[in-house]
């Protein structure tokens, strides 16, 4: 167990290094001006440009720049070009909203995906299975921003419900329950839109592994014992197919954050995705480097946790 953790951590450190190199060089090696005001803006005097270059170490060779930016990132000194505030604080402010959004949509994708996958396997190869397969691809093919607008048209036009932002603007809550419900509602709509793709991915995943498991001898045994179909599916087949589902969580995270870039924008939801989009618009490259790095590092951490979960849910996996 300890040997496994040590080895995983070593691999993790290597990956983290690669991630930092990729997120730095992709942004700095990309041709194009790093200046928020554009390369040839006549209103910016050469002195200002020089000061700017000094401040963000742009006058140094690339390798040194990499060193500086990583040092600043880890010491929390890395500052945004736009408002000079520490990048880590900016990200920290946005993190809780994004975590809430992603956690909810992850829970939605897992539960509905699980249900849909088991439903498809129950009717494997027959008409309901074909329908759920097509439905899964319908979900994947729906562009998130389009669904968001349809949701806005539907909800705002027909019910008049406020759905933008973190909470209803300028409302005094009569009590805690009302506040909770209002906030929950504001997370729930974007979370549902965000979860659509995840439901499809998880159900396809589960269908593939469970149909594999259903060919096994222990399933025949379970059936021969006279267990009900539900027991066979949920207790015997699902338990043995849960492992890829756990990996699926790791793969879903980057997709969720990608999706959040657009969806947080539409719903005016102040999360990481919106921060990233604002940073892109402002060419705020310290923020971009930091965001790409931190998100990728979080995904890496998530993968490590899911590997450990593996061993916990599946006693056949021995960690050594």
């Amino acid at each position, binding site marked *: 167990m300890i040997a496994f953790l040590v080895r995983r951590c070593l*691999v993790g450190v*290597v*990956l983290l290094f*690669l*991630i930092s190199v*990729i*997120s730095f060089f*992709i*942004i700095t090696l*990309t*041709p*194009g001006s790093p200046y928020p005001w554009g390369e040839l803006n006549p209103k910016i005097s050469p002195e200002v440009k020089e000061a700017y270059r000094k401040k963000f170490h742009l006058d140094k060779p690339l390798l040194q720049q990499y060193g500086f930016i990583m040092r600043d990132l880890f010491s929390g000194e890395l500052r945004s070009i736009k408002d000079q505030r520490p990048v880590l604080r900016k990200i920290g402010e946005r993190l809780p909203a994004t975590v809430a959004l992603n956690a909810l949509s992850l829970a939605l994708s897992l539960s509905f995906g699980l249900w849909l996958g088991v439903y498809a396997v129950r009717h494997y190869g027959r008409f309901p299975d*074909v329908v759920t*397969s*097509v439905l899964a*691809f*319908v979900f*994947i*093919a*729906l*562009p*998130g*921003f*389009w669904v968001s*607008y*349809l949701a*806005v*048209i539907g909800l*705002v*036009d027909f019910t008049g419900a406020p759905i933008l932002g973190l909470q209803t603007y300028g409302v005094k809550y009569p009590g805690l329950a009302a506040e909770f419900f209002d906030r929950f509602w504001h997370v729930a709509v974007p979370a549902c839109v965000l979860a659509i793709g995840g439901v499809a991915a998880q159900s396809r995943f589960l269908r593939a592994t469970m149909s594999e498991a259903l060919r096994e001898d222990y399933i025949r045994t379970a059936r021969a014992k006279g267990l009900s179909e539900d027991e066979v599916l949920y207790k015997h087949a699902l338990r043995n197919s849960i492992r890829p589902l756990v990996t699926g969580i790791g*793969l879903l995270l*980057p*997709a969720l*954050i*990608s*999706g959040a*870039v*657009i969806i947080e*924008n539409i719903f005016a939801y102040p999360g990481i*995705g919106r921060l*990233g*989009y604002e940073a*892109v*618009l402002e*060419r705020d*490259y310290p923020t*971009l480097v930091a*965001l*790409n790095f931190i*998100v*990728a*590092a979080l*995904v*890496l951490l998530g*993968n490590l946790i899911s590997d450990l979960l593996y061993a916990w849910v599946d006693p056949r996996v021995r960690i050594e």
Partner: protein
Amino acid sequence: MKTETPVQRTLRRFFRNPVGVVSFGLVAVVITVAASVAVLSFFGWSIPFDPNATNLEAKLLPPGGEHWLGTDNLGRDVFSRILQGSYISLSVGFIAVFVSLSIGVVVGAVSGYLGGWVDNVLMRAVDAIMCFPSFFLILTVVAMLGPNIVNVIVVIGLVSWTGTARLVRAEFLTLRETEYVRAARCLGQGNWKIIFRHILPNAAAPIFVTAVLGIPDAILAEAGLSYLGFGVQPPQATWGNIITDGKVYILDAWWLIVFPGLAIFLSALGFYLVGDSLRQAAETRSERT
């Protein structure tokens, strides 16, 4: 008795599947439309209206009448603009997949065939890239490079090859142990020849399927980019930027949102279903007797 080649068998099973037939029809229509629009606009014709002709007397007209799908805030015909957007979407889809496939196949093949430290290094790099949220990465790089069609295609291709690389590597890991590869090696063939002449053709089916499934991914990524204003630039219409222009009028002119979105959705769905039906048809195990 006539024997069937694997390709013939796959095709026969593909066209026996109703989902396959319908989605193939959908994709065929989308491709034909896009190709004819491209040819027509090359000769300077546009059907039924000039997609860029503004007419402020006929702005925000609802669908029906002369303008089948209505007009936008500048009086441009939405149907013509959707047609014009079709070949942007499809060419991004096809070319980006070509880029990502080329990288993915080479990396996967080298990694799976050589094994050892080369494999280790390449696969760790793939792991690292897979940690990045791909759409955000694409957005960042395209924004830095400056949005135009070449940049959009290249960046989408450069970011999305990791899945193909993993798949090709897995195929190569099993195929390199087969007898015919050993035989080729015994006959003194070089590594490159073994990789491309002997192993790759036998891994063609799954690679082709991932390629087909990659097309809608690229179409959706392009739509997202041009929705955010980092795709192909106006006045060229794309499905994404019609929606961006129309979102201001969302509660008055639903047709500016609904129809271009439907175009994105249907073409992506068509390619996904064709890819999935092909995968099912190519599976050797699932044939029912």
